[in-house]
Every structure is written in C-alpha cells, then in structure tokens.
C-alpha cells in the first residue's frame, strides 16, 4: 500500500443544472500556488537615518497629514522633547536626504517640526508616556543643555529618578546664546521648563569640579550621564599676537544674552566659519556695528568644492541670510597678521588659505604672496570651544573631548555615560538631543541588567524601491521669511503657516519604507488576499496578508508606493 487517507471523503452531490452556492471557492486555498510571499516590512526612511535626534519623521508626518497634530507631536517628542527649538535651529540633514528631493522638492520637515513644537506650546500639551513603570534607581545628569535635557527627559520616561546639575543658573546650555531672531528666548525657555516639569530634580548653579565631584555622583547615583558641553574658548592668536581688548565670540553672545549690550565698532572682523561666528556677525550688525566681516579658510556652503576641502560648518541657510543682511564673508582666507597700533587693532592682513581634511585632522594652509589689508577696529575670534576638564580630568586623560563607546559609556567606565558636545562629533542641537536619548536607553539597559546593544544605523530604503507613479508633483511649503531690509531687530525672521498648509506639506511625505495606508495592496490584489485589520488588537495594522489565498503574484509589492512590501521566497 502506498499512501492512503483515513476514510474516503464523501463526494459532493450533483445539483440540478449544476448550480453552485455563492462564495464557496473559499474552500479552495490557492495560497498553495505561491512561490514567494509578500511581507509588510517597515524599512528605515532616509530622513530617519539622517536625523541626529532619531526622529521617526514619516510617522509624525503621517499623523499630521491625517489631521492628527497632537498625535504627530506626541510621536515627535517620543524622540525629541524640544521640537520648537530644533525645528528652528537644526540644519535639518533629514531634508537633504529626503527622497522627495529627487522627485520635486524635499519635504520641509523642519517647518513641520517647528509648527508642531509651537502648536504644543500654544495648546499647552503635555508629554505622553510618563505613566509607565516607576524605577527606584537614581541617575545623575550633568549639564542642562539639549543633551542633558534629552537624557533626563528619556530617563524620566523610563521611570528613573533624575537629578540634573548645571553650572549656570538656567537650563538650556549653549542654546541660550542663539539670537532671538533665530530662536526666541521665550520659546527655548518654555520647552526647557516643560522638560524640567516632568519631575526632574534640577540643580542649577552646581558646577562639577567645584560644587561636586565625579566621585560624589558615582556614590550617590546608580549611573551618571555627562553632558557638560564645551564652555571653554579655544585659545586664539595670530603668531602669538592678540589685540588688547580681546573678546571671544561666544562670550560676546553670552553678554548679549545676559546683559543686553554689545560693543559698537566701525568695522569688526569675526574669525571663524561656524554658527557662533555667523550669529555674532549678524547680531553685531543689528546692534550698531557699521560693517561686519567674517574671515574663514573654509568654503561657503554650496560653493563648488573639491573633495576634502573644508566647508563652513555654519548652517547654510544662516550663512545665506547673513550675506543677505550685509555680512561680508571672506571664504578661503585667513588672517596672516594683525595690524596693531599700540594694543589696538587697526586692520588685518588677509591671506589666501584653505582647510583640508586629511583623515580626521584638518590641515590649514596659507599661500604667501596673496596678502591684502583690511582695515578694522575689532578682531573677534569665534573659532570654537573646548571641553572644560574641571571635575572630569580623570576621564579626559589629556584628550580634548570625552572618549565614548558606541554604548554611550565613557571609555573604561561602566556607570558613566556621556553625550552632547563634550563628545567627539556633534555640534548641532539635534545631535545633542539624540545622544541624550541614546544615553538614556543605554543607562536603562544597564540598570535593567540587559545587554547594551546600540542600534546600528539603519540602511535607508533606496529611492528605487518606491513606486513614484502614485505621487503627484506638488510645490513644497516654505516658511515665511522677513526680507533682509526688514530684519533690523531681533524679532524672528521666519514665521510659520496655518495648519492646513503644514498638513498638506506633511502629506507630501513619501513615507519611505512605512505604510501609507493608501489601500493600494488592498485594492489591487486580484485574489482578495489582503485584508484590513480595522484596528483589531490581535492583528498588526492596517493590513494583513491572508496567505490562504495569496498566490504570490507580487502585484502588491510592485504597486506599493512606499516600498513597505517585500517579496521573500516561500519557506
């Protein structure tokens, strides 16, 4: 005997005229035909991959597009608690990576982020996600800049007790020196206050190395997150010469923030290509300095560049606006000599120069015989800051920045983590936010005695995986920008738009790798093998494949606009 069934099935009985009852092919499971099966698979969007704060951008864009601004904000603050700040000051690398940029124009993500941040402040929304498990462990966070705030915030969400120390009387870190025309102080204050209000024990005016030691923290807390930032001005001189009344750029900005005054010069030269230089240059123009020059050996953002050539790190939009406003930028130059009368600066000798990046270290080169003279009554270095070793010298071990592992732990330490500007890389607010978030997650893993497995950066879904035929070209939303001639004061240059416009902008999102819930798969399956789950709790939303009937034709995957469906061989 070969193969036999248990008992022969009784055959169906024939009907007059051969009629059949409706819908009975359901007993015919055509899924057995399948060689490949489709899977719903969320892939990383390029914007998410590019976002230093790890925001799930397509998710909150989707919420807003579907007219759920609060849900949008809530999913946004699941990664970044200060979107009104980052929405203004972040150079939004997300937009540079946006696939929509290759189609018509990148989605104006920062406009949406800022809009949601503002709306939350206006509406008084409070953060979601603080009603979970409460933990006994206490964690210390040093530095109430964006990294420290972010870390403290996420630790609170995980249920920890958090004490946040800062040397300054206010939280906010270097964000405080960003001029009001970019980031109104009130916006910053309100977001910072909201963060602190999640139950963080904030200790202002408490400086590590002066008011408490690392050992105190190690003893009093289960873990420590260090985010002291870079507060110490990098030393500057031109062949060891310095003007007598040397002002550092960042100090001037703090002076403006705290005292409300800035010196008025006839002609000031700001040295440096970063945001501090640009912020200061523009602030000086606004406060009465007649002429402001910026000298940098880097190239202007967006200028034709050779590989390895240094580009001004300042946000390109800001550089552009500075130029519009009358700041004179001298790229590819450096000051070769200060022209001093007594100790007073009367001018500088500029020389053609360039900055090349070879490996990790920049190389500055100047070219003799290209000197020109620029008269000036002030030279202000804004060439960056360094980490203040006070209290953390043990960890720095003669390095300029805190060495951290991928786990966020300081090299050689178990319970000490670090993030923000004090660590290598960084320099922008959203990066600080992201590092604080990362630190919080790693601390959580440590305290829960789980493996500290940092997320590997996701590979974003390629442009070719999208089915662009389902999208219509539409112009991108742009923030309203005051014309240069009207930018005399410190009121904000950019103003946002009404909800419907931002909603439309959010709707431009391709949702790369995410389900748009567009119904294409549900609509186009010839076999009716895609089912809507309709919010059922026992099933993933919004669709499932009914593999009883899916023949594996691949039509759904081919027609998915956002690359959310992948065909895989049948197991």
């Amino acid at each position, binding site marked *: 005997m070969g193969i036999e069934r248990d008992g022969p099935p009784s055959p169906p009985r024939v009907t007059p*005229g051969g009629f059949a009852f409706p819908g009975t092919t359901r007993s015919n499971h055509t899924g057995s035909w399948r060689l490949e099966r489709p899977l719903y698979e969320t892939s990383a969007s390029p914007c998410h991959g590019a976002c230093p704060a790890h925001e799930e951008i397509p998710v909150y864009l989707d919420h807003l597009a579907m007219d759920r601004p609060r849900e949008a904000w809530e999913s946004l603050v699941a990664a970044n608690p200060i979107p009104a700040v980052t929405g203004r000051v972040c150079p939004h690398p997300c937009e540079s990576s946006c696939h929509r940029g290759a189609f018509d124009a990148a989605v104006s993500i920062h406009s949406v982020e800022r809009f949601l941040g503002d709306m939350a402040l206006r509406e008084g929304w409070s953060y979601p996600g603080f009603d979970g498990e409460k933990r006994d462990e206490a964690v210390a966070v040093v530095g109430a800049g964006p990294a420290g705030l972010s870390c403290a915030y996420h630790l609170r969400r995980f249920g920890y007790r958090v004490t946040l120390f800062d040397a300054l009387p206010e939280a906010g870190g270097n964000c405080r020196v960003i001029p009001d025309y970019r980031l109104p102080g009130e916006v910053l204050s309100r977001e910072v206050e909201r963060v602190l209000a999640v139950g963080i024990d904030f200790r202002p005016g408490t400086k590590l190395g002066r008011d408490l030691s690392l050992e105190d923290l190690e003893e009093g807390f289960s873990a420590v997150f260090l985010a002291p930032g870079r507060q110490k001005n990098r030393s500057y001189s031109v062949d060891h010469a310095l003007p007598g009344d040397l002002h550092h750029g960042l100090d001037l900005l703090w002076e403006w923030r705290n005292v409300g005054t800035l010196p008025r010069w006839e002609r000031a030269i700001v040295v440096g290509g970063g945001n501090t230089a640009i912020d200061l240059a523009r602030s000086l123009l606004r406060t009465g300095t007649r002429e402001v020059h910026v000298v940098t050996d880097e190239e202007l953002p967006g200028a034709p560049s050779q590989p390895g050539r240094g580009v001004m790190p300042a946000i390109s939009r800001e550089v552009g606006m500075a130029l519009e406003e009358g700041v004179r930028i001298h790229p590819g130059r450096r000051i070769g000599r200060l022209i001093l009368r007594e100790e007073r600066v009367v001018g500088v000798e500029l020389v053609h120069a360039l900055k090349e990046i070879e490996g990790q270290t920049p190389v500055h080169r100047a070219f003799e015989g290209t000197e020109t003279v620029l008269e000036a009554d002030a030279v202000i270095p804004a060439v960056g800051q360094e980490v203040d070793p006070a209290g953390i010298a043990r960890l720095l071990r003669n390095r300029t920045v805190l060495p951290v592992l991928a786990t966020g732990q300081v090299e050689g330490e178990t319970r000490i983590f670090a993030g923000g500007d004090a660590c290598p890389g960084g320099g922008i607010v959203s990066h600080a936010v992201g590092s604080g978030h990362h630190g919080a997650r790693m601390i959580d893993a440590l305290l829960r005695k789980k493996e500290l497995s940092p997320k590997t950066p996701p590979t974003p879904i390629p442009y070719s995986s999208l089915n662009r035929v389902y999208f219509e070209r539409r112009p991108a939303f742009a923030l309203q920008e005051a014309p240069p001639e009207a930018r005399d004061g410190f009121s904000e240059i950019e103003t946002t738009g009404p909800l419907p416009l931002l909603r439309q902008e959010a709707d431009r999102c391709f949702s790369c790798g995410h389900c748009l819930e567009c119904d294409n798969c549900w609509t186009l399956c010839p076999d009716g093998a895609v089912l809507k789950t309709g919010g059922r709790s026992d099933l993933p939303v919004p669709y499932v494949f009914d593999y009883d009937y899916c023949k594996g034709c691949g039509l759904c995957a081919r027609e998915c606009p956002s690359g959310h469906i992948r065909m895989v061989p049948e197991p």
Partner: protein
Amino acid sequence: MREALEGSQAIARAVALCRPQVVAAYPITPQTHIVEGLARLIADGLLAAELVSVESEFSAASVVLGAAAAGSRSYTASASQGILLMSEVLYNISGLRIPVVLTCANRAVSSPVSIWNDHQDSMAVRDSGWIQLYCADNQEAVDTTIQAFRISERTELPVMVCMDGFTLTHTLEPIDLPEAAQVDAFLPPFHFSRTLSSVAPLSQGTLVSPEFFTEMRYLQHRAFDAAEREILETDRDWGHLVGRECGGLLHVEGDREAPVGILAMGSVYGTLKDAHQAGLLGRHVRLLRLRSFRPFPAEAIRRACTGLADLLVLDRALSPGSGGIVAHEIRSALYGVPGAPRVANVVVGLGGRNVPDGIFREMLDSLEKNPPAFSFFDLDPRKLPDPGPDASAPSGSLFSPR
C-alpha cells in the same frame, strides 16, 4: 370559447392565456404569425408582457433563458434554420434546467431552401434535452401549449411544442379556446426554484469536471422519467378541466386488434385517420400517434405494438446516410421484445410535399411485398439526374435508392 382561428393566432391567444412575462422571438416563416399575434395582443393591452424583438433566434433563445432564470414565465417560437441557430442555446437551457416553452412551427432545413413543412428542424435538436410534443391539429396545439408551461415548470425541463408549419400554423379552423379562469386554475404563477436573486444568490452554468459530468447528465436524463408521468398527468388534468385530452405520450386508436399498424407524428396523422375513417386503407389498421418524442415512451410503444405483425413508421425528417429517425427509435424500443412486429420505415412529405390520403393504402399494400427497411415513399425517380434501373417505377411505390 369556440372561434374560427388561424393556427398561429390560436397559439398566440393560448400563450397569452398563460400570462407569460417575456416573449422573445425572431421572425421566420412559418412562425411569424404567432409572434405577430402576440405583438398585437400586447399592443392592444390584452397581454402584459415584455416583447423582445431580438436580432436573431440565437438571442431569442438567450433572452428567454435569461428571463426565465430571472423568474419570469418566458416564451419563444421559431422554425427551421432558426431552431438550428438556437441549438447551442437550446442545449444550454435544458442543461441549466430552466423552464421555457418554445413553439416550433416545423419546417424543412436548407440547403436546398424550403420554407415548407417537415420535421427536420425539431429532429435536428432531438438530443438537446428538450421535451418535444408533436401536435396533430390546432386544437391540440392550443391545449398542448398551455400544458407545456405546466409540464416545463414542474419538471424544470424546457418544452418544445411542435406544430407543422403552414399545415397547422396557417390553417384556419374552429378552435375551443379555454377561459382565462380555467387556465389560471390549471397553471399557477411562474415559479423557478433557482431564480436569479440577490436575496439568495446562486451561480448557474458552472464548469463541471469529468468527475461529476456523468452524474449531472444522469440527473438530466432521469428528469425525463418524471416528465413522462408529468405529461400524462397534465393531459389528464387538462381533460378533466376542459373535456378533451391530447393523447398523452402515445395515442392508439383505429382497429385495436389489427395486425398492421401505422405510426405517425404531427398533422399527417389527421389525413391518415381521415383515410381510415373513409375506408381508404382497405384493411384493418391500428393507428398510433406519437405525441411525445422526448421523453420517448418506449414502454408505451411496446404495449401499443402488442399483437402487431407489421408496423409502418412514417418519418418526416431524414438522417442522411441512415434513414428515418423516429423508426430507429421505435425499433430500438421493440428490440428483443418477443413477437415484436417488423418495422417498415418510410420518409414522406419532405419539404412540404403533399401527403394525399390515398398514399397510405399504397404503403400498406407494399408491406405485403417484403419491403425494404427504409424507403423514400413519395420519391419520383423520373426527377433524378440518373434515373437508373428503377426509373420506370411508378410514383408511390416503395423505392430505395440505396
């Protein structure tokens, strides 16, 4: 009520009495007057039915298929080429077991073209799964038409009422038309158990695999057993209602004890009976009139043939290369029956050729001369291109060209 009516008009009136909701037809001689009559009844408001004047017989059959499947009593009529053009649909209607009534105004099938009467058209679709009832006169055609709706609806088999073209359709004679109330009492409102309806949706006309096809066909075949009983019962009921019957499946009369019989279908039987009554047959003869060709009443035939030595079967259609058609089936029914009569088969009256009352005696006389099993009885060999050795044989003698 008794009226002098042309056969076609009588059929139109009889159909109207059955209150069909849909009538679809394409004109073809000699069927035209039937549908024209119905059109006039509808135009005059005497019949509330949808008349669909289709673009072909094919569509006529298709329309009544759809209409009956959708729950309406439906009627069509045709003849000759029209029946053949319908044939694919005819198989379909019966296979779907949809009740429909069709009048076939029997006519020859071309080529060569003949608009006149014989039975080639209905015989061509004898295997299509339709009940076929042949009428001897117009009264019977009227009564059979009304009966046909009931038989069809009870058996879920379509019924073809066969009446000879011109000979009946165009002949005016007195007809007893039943009263509307009588027909209403006899024929309940149309009901089809598998009516297309979104309330109880069914799928009809499915693909049936070899695994089940035989059983499907068997079911259809068995339905004809039930149809035999239904035809008899319906005729009997009709008789109780109006006082006349149509002959059930097979009508036997004449000299019941005679050793010789003649079997015929359709209007030629009237002439035969007339000749018998007038004594023109010259001998005692048993007369058999086959009313139901499908279902084929084999048992009734065997009973009716008891005691016969010879049976002459008249065919009015031809299966070229074989012979008559009815006779084959009669022989088949008698096969193996002890003492079964010899069966002689003649084809007469093809393409409207007149069948005079004198011809029957010649046929009977020929039986005594050991006739061939099959012959063209009214063939005139003088008209053949190569008359051959029998060219001198007079018209009316048994002659087989084979």
